[in-house]
């Protein structure tokens, strides 16, 4: 996994609550057996005016010019400002894969759905939860100022606004450690292989009915 330390990027507002993972990446793109190439179909049903398919040449498709992602002022955005319950619905990791592949590194919202939130950290994306009022303020500021850029500093757990003011955010210590170092969870867990084996042995002894083969 790629590491995350400090990121400075243009913010893009997605002013809509309960953005679900079907919204982020529609199901027809989940037929892929790869984990890359989803960025061009991020927010597909809103970004384009027609229905996309996995083998379509996306450069020929009509764009929905009203959709925020297509507006000239937000080209190159890498910080996504979102509303409540972002990422609800399916567990598809294709959602963070699509966001990452498109170029988003930071998501800011008053709340995220649990599975999606967890999936972001596995892919080098930093989801940040801030108070609803503060997110409201950020929405207003982004809308008001073209080129609104935020600097997100993970070691310091801070977001610096264009006016230099700083917002503090919380992040789980373990997830922070993994993101900062780009660590592979599996490798870390396997350092505890002995503990897992010991647990498994006593559990098998106590509850042999869980160890009949599927």
């Amino acid at each position, binding site marked *: 996994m790629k590491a995350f330390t400090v990121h400075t990027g243009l913010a893009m507002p997605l002013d809509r609550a309960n953005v679900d993972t079907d919204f982020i990446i529609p199901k027809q793109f989940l037929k892929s057996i790869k*984990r890359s190439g989803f960025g061009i179909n991020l927010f597909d049903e809103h970004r384009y005016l027609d229905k996309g398919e996995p083998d379509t040449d996306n450069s020929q498709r009509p764009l929905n010019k009203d959709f925020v992602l297509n507006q000239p002022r937000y080209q190159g955005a890498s910080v996504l400002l979102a509303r409540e319950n972002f990422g609800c619905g399916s*567990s598809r*990791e294709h959602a963070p894969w699509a966001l990452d592949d498109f170029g988003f590194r930071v998501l800011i919202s008053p709340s995220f759905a*649990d599975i999606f939130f967890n999936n972001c950290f596995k892919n080098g994306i930093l989801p940040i939860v801030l108070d609803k009022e503060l997110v409201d303020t950020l929405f207003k500021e982004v809308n008001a100022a073209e080129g609104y850029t935020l600097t997100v500093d993970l070691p310091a757990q801070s977001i610096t606004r264009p006016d230099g003011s700083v917002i503090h955010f919380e992040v789980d210590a*373990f997830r922070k450690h993994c993101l900062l170092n780009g660590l592979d969870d599996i490798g870390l867990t396997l350092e505890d292989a002995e*503990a897992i084996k010991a647990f498994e042995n006593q559990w098998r002894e106590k509850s042999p009915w869980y160890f009949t083969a599927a």
Partner: protein
Amino acid sequence: MSGKTLYDKLWESHLVKQRDDGTALIYIDRQLIHEVTSPQAFEGLRLTGRKPWRADANLATPDHNIPTTKAERSRGLDGIVDPVSRIQVRTLADNCRDFGITELDMNDIRQGIVHVVGPEQGATLPGMTIVCGDSHTSTHGALGALAHGIGTSEVEHVMATQCLIQKKMKNMLIRVDGKLNPGVTAKDIVLAIIGEIGTAGGTGYTIEFGGEAVRSLSMEGRMTICNMAIEAGARAGLISVDQTTIDYIKGRPMAPQGELFTKAAEFWKTLVSDADAHFDRVVVLDAADIIPQVTWGTSPEMVAPVTGVVPDPDQEKDPSRADNIRQALKYMGLKPGTAIKDIQLDVVFIGSCTNSRIEDLRAAAAVVKGRKVASSIQLAMVVPGSGLVKQQAEAEGLDKIFTDAGLEWREPGCSMCLAMNADQLPAGKHCASTSNRNFEGRQGFGGRTHLVSPAMAAAAAIHGHFVDVRDILLEPARA
């Protein structure tokens, strides 16, 4: 000191290691695998040269992406018309073979939707921890197992380590007191709950469902409720074990047999929340207040009783909620104040991991028996949850009842619930669906989904619009 919740007990019994930072390693007893969220995980194992920690803890079956027509299915993997889907289903078969994992393949009679197959095979047992790369894994909580959906990175993590890195959730109890009225089902209960607490109401919690109305449900009804815990934001739903649970498991092929079953059942009976257990939040509903539910919007919380009307955003005080309602009504092509019963339908879908089990099909068949699908309905389809459900339904003659009434009888799979295969809801069309999500585009690009119970979907198929199934049940019996 207060007692423990069922969730506390399941957590503690699977705790391998508590880390200083609040995360924990939790041992996983069972992983269910399907074709869509597993290929990248298997690829990860290959790239790192890792092997499954315990291959026999995994069970795979293709469901999301497979065709449901007999014509395509009868030709096996080569018969799958869509080449991209064919590769994905074949990849699952190849991966399972390479890594020594049991797969119930596409034309195995035991194949079906993972969340139907797990309990049906006895691969889901009380007291287990269960994961699957699918959010509706919460279904298995109905058997007193701690079960939740995970992403593909975690699928790989569980394959390689038999553990999941987790933080303990908070405890929520949702109690549904009293008795349900006739014609009101588990689906109506869970939709009413989501209407009450919202789609983020359960975020950060494990929800235990209790109370007389829940306890009186069959295992299949309980699965319907836990299935949709995720639509209330909770990764896991739970129901305490009782005799109904134990009776359901007895004799299932992958469940323990004989003396081992007796011993296990003794242990399973302890898998209940203690009377003095502490819940961080308790929500109480009265079963008598619940009437058949229909969603009108693009989120499961946008739900109303069948006797109700589509809401008016101008009456909503919270501006952000009012915006949500406006967006939803625009997408759904509905006007505020429209009676739910006046919503005209084009398509009916009976199936999905929420409602495709034998009792669901019986309930739908009871409504359509001797009647005909309305001429305005362009497609009405019934998709059983597994090959065994299909076989049972056919033994009872349900397939004949459906086809005589004008509904299509399909092969098992996820089908139009998420429309990854050819079963898609056309743009602008309204569908009465027994599935779990009414998100924009969920059942097909531009499609308009209304979530209902199987009996309500069947009644809607007959009338071409929503009707209160309780009225139909009062009509004289038919031949």
